[in-house]
């Protein structure tokens, strides 16, 4: 049974200009211990999906259609009380801007202990602290820095602390939202490696959200490429990265330098994503698409299988 199933998910934001459909008809599923990378430009809806998985949409956002099933429980309709028990216990999150995700006026140890004790009310302070020490060892943080304040940590240490916090309750699923964006390349690499290792060690399912397809390809088993609220290509990481079919994925791949891949010229993607308020009749990428045809503007594109487990939302592939 799949750890996570997302079916036909649609999420809208209520704005002054009307309903903004940030996510539209997204389907994917995740097996335990596997990792899925969601890639796309900013504003494509990948973070929104991450938030929806935690039940943390902002006040003006709501799930308009579809459902999210985690471990057999439909969390998209769960009441707030139940949802709170699910959070961190089963789904943890590594935040986008790790620098600001730690409360500046509270000690690191206290922040992690808080996460533990919220869900394990019977655990006393000593036990919780012991657990935090274990987590520190796990992520390679020195124990003497246990009671520091966030501002005393370097960026990489903060990120490790966040990861430690995410692992605190042995969650089944971790959502990592741009976990390494603000770090320098070396630290980034280290942390990614460790993350990968931890994942296999504890058999955690990971949803890895990033704008950098090369990193995702490196870390994850599977990749889903998102564009303008829709999943446009999905499949095993290597398939999607080295054999990308969707013009957007191709553009995405060629816009990042890869350390391992062949030397090619970086190609920026011209144009901007469409406005997501109101309905869009045809393919959402057609304005920027090199293969654009007249029919693209009129009809919704269909999913096509292009390889084993490799699907693409484009009529021309």
């Amino acid at each position, binding site marked *: 049974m799949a750890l996570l199933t997302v079916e036909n998910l649609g999420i809208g934001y209520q704005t002054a200009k009307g309903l903004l459909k940030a996510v539209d008809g997204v389907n994917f599923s995740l097996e335990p211990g596997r990792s899925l990378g969601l890639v796309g430009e900013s504003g494509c809806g990948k973070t929104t999906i991450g938030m929806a998985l935690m039940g943390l949409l902002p*006040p003006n956002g709501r799930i308009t259609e579809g459902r999210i099933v985690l471990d057999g429980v439909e969390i998209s309709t769960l*009441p*707030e*009380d139940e949802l709170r028990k699910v959070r961190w216990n089963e789904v943890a999150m590594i935040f986008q801007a790790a620098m600001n995700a730690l409360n500046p006026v509270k000690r690191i140890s206290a922040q992690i202990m808080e996460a533990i004790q919220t869900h394990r009310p019977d655990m006393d302070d000593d036990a919780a602290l012991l657990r935090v020490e274990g987590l520190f060892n796990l992520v390679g943080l020195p124990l003497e820095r246990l009671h520091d304040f966030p501002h005393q940590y370097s960026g990489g240490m903060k990120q490790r602390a966040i990861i430690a916090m995410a692992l605190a309750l042995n969650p089944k699923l971790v959502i990592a939202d741009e976990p390494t964006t603000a770090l320098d390349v070396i630290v980034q690499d280290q942390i990614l490696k460790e993350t990968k290792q931890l994942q296999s060690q504890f058999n955690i399912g990971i949803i890895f959200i990033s704008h950098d397809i090369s990193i995702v390809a490196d870390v994850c088993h599977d990749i889903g490429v998102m564009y303008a609220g829709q999943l446009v290509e999905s499949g095993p990481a290597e398939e999607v990265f080295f054999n990308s079919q969707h013009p957007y994925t191709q553009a995405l791949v060629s816009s990042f330098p890869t350390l391992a891949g062949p030397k090619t010229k970086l190609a920026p993607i011209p144009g901007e994503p469409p406005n997501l308020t109101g309905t869009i009749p045809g393919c959402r990428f057609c304005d920027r698409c090199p293969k654009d045809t007249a029919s693209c503007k009129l009809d919704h594109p269909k999913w096509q299988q292009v390889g084993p487990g490799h699907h693409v939302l484009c009529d021309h592939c």
Partner: protein
Amino acid sequence: MRKRGKLVARHYKFACFTCKVAAAALLAVFLLGLAPASQAASNGMLKVGVLQDPKSLNLWLATDAWSSRVLGMIYQPLFVREPKDSKLVPWLAAGEPVYDPGKMTYTLKLRAAKWSDGTDFTAEDVVFTGNMIKEFRIPRQSSKWSFIDKIVAVDKHTVRFELKRPKAIFLTRTLVTPIVQKKQWAKLVAEARKSGKPLSALLRESADHPVGTGPFMLEQWKKGVFVYMKANPYFFGKGQTIEGYKMGPYIKGIIFKVFGTADAAVLALRKGSIDFYWNSIQPGYLKQLQDDPEVKLFVSKKSGLYYLGFNLRKAPFDDMALRQAVATIIDKDFIVKRILGGYGEVLYSVIPPGNTFYYNPDVPKYGHGMSNDQRVKKAYEILKAAGYTWEVPPVNAQGQVQKAKVIRLPDGDPMKEFTILTPPADYDPHRAMSGQLIQEWLRAIGMPAVSRPMAFGALIQKVKGQHDFDCFILGYGKLSLDPGYMRSFFHSRMNKTNGWNMSGYESAAYDAMATESNNAMDPKLRREMIMELQNMVMTAVPYVPLYNPTIIEGVRVDRFTGWVQMLNGIGNIWSFCDIKPK
């Protein structure tokens, strides 16, 4: 999200609960505070409301009205003024002083009184007090004693004053000086002498436990709250009849309650937490007090003089005609009616009518009984006759009053802008407002007057110290009944820096008569001279007397009776010795 709402609601409820607890606590405090108040309904204690604490209990420093209210119960003079005619009567003295014209000595018998610590009051105390004032040159007192050569204690109850020269104020001013106890002050004096600055050292002695001969003695003073005085068991007057009053005190004591603001004191009077508000009540409060059957109001005359003064040392105020015109144009009735709310009298002489013995009713009364137009016309006539001209005169060819423009002095120059200095409105709103009005009236006849309130100290400095002013409004709330000030105010010798002759009026004839009057020991003769002096002053008008306010005082009628009304109100020693609980 719904859940969040619920949670906030819970928090909000908690806040409400906190508020309720706070309110309940306040209520409890309120009840607690009330309980002792109702319990301590004092018996036989007179409660007197005052606005401020005494500034000091050091008699020589405490010159303000609030201190003298308290100290006046303790320290007593040899003579006091009686209620009916304000004549001086023996108080600590046993009788009138006996004058020996040949030796210029006065011999005075003293009462067999006791100090509040039980020791005897003797001639030595009088001698000590006089010598101390002379030695330390104590402010306000030393001028009353400086002409005394020697004070001798003839026996225990007889004292002899040897004068350097005859002086009328010996009887009227010197003998009303409060007497202090030698036993208490000798120590303080010795200490003060030792320091480099004896006078300031003496004034800084705290003297917190005054010993006196008066009807009450100090029991407790909680600063800013109350002064509690108990009846003095050794008071010399107890049981005796003086001037027809059978002396008490019949009350156990007095509590002076300090209120800080008049509204609080008036309300306290109405609520019954004080029996007497010892201060003049502003007209604004009168209506509610008049409607209150429990409160009785006393309207008493005051010996006060509020006036407009000119600087005779400079143009254009050196011109008598101009001064007379200004005196004419001022509508004193208006000031009394509007600014004093009708509680006061119009003054035409520098001696107020209340001082019946010396008051001269026949001085020139500028503008008396005239309407506004008549005033303008009269002033116009006076000025025109003196050679003043206008661009637009205040009275047109048809004899109608109009707005005047640019008055020119007899020499043809336009009159320069001049200022009327007044105390600031918070110090005395009446004088500040009068200044404003006078400015407007003067402008109606073209005089460019500007009324300018100024801090009292700076005002005194400018007027008295530097003689750097045009006009000013000042006044005396409690003018002495002895007209000795006629000399100090207008004698040319006093026309000097920090001298009392602030206007700079000089007249040889006046000087001679003023000096003579002050040395005249015969009251009748002195009276005639004082009458003439008033006439001279009011012809030259260095001062334009404006008004003399009346005192309105309120007492409750439910607990005490027997108030004695006299000049300057019911708050006097006679009242406190005579009131009885109902």
